């Protein structure tokens, strides 16, 4: 099966800073999602982005499918952005999402 690698594993930011999270895939995927798991454990959809660029407020994501990576940009970070960010992909056309190990983000006031 595919391998999903996220970097960095941990990130500490001061409120207001920008950051870029990266997700690399070992094989091509046709379903790629970014999630935020908040401190209460809830998994929140951020983007469904198998290719191209999307923006939602302070967050944007870009997937370069031919090079098998995706980036999540967080601008003007806030303390509420803290939590774990996961990317996940499906290479089998079955909906079987393979998750990366996550990036744990802490935003300090």
């Amino acid at each position: 099966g595919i391998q999903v690698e996220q970097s960095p594993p941990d990130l500490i930011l001061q409120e207001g800073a920008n950051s870029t999270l990266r997700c690399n895939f070992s094989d091509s995927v046709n379903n790629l999602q970014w999630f935020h798991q908040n401190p209460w454990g809830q998994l929140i959809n951020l983007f469904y982005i198998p290719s191209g660029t999307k923006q939602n407020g302070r967050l944007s994501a870009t997937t370069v499918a031919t090079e098998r990576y995706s980036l999540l940009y967080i601008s003007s970070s806030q303390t509420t952005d803290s939590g774990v960010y996961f990317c996940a992909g499906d290479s089998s056309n079955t909906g079987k999402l393979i998750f990366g190990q996550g990036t744990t983000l802490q935003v300090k006031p």
Partner: protein
Amino acid sequence: DTAVSQTPKYLVTQMGNDKSIKCEQNLGHDTMYWYKQDSKKFLKIMFSYNNKELIINETVPNRFSPKSPDKAHLNLHINSLELGDSAVYFCASSQVLAGGHGETQYFGPGTRLLVL
């Protein structure tokens, strides 16, 4: 209105017991999933059902048995619970398009299972 709901949210039980976790989605999706998140936050798929038919069955002990009475529900029954079953179990749903391409998966709030 909750899109994907799970009950119970917390489950504390003794080793050897049998327990069930229920999942319901009101999104009209045709595919539902169970994922397990371990203590290191790693998420792994366990099962998926499409229109009540088992599609994905990962290497999961046969003490775990999913049941889908209709396409809006996917329950997880666990027999003879073991300490290592302690984890957070997430249910999810999505619409699978023609050709098998899946769309966004929406996750429930999770069920925190602790086996003593």
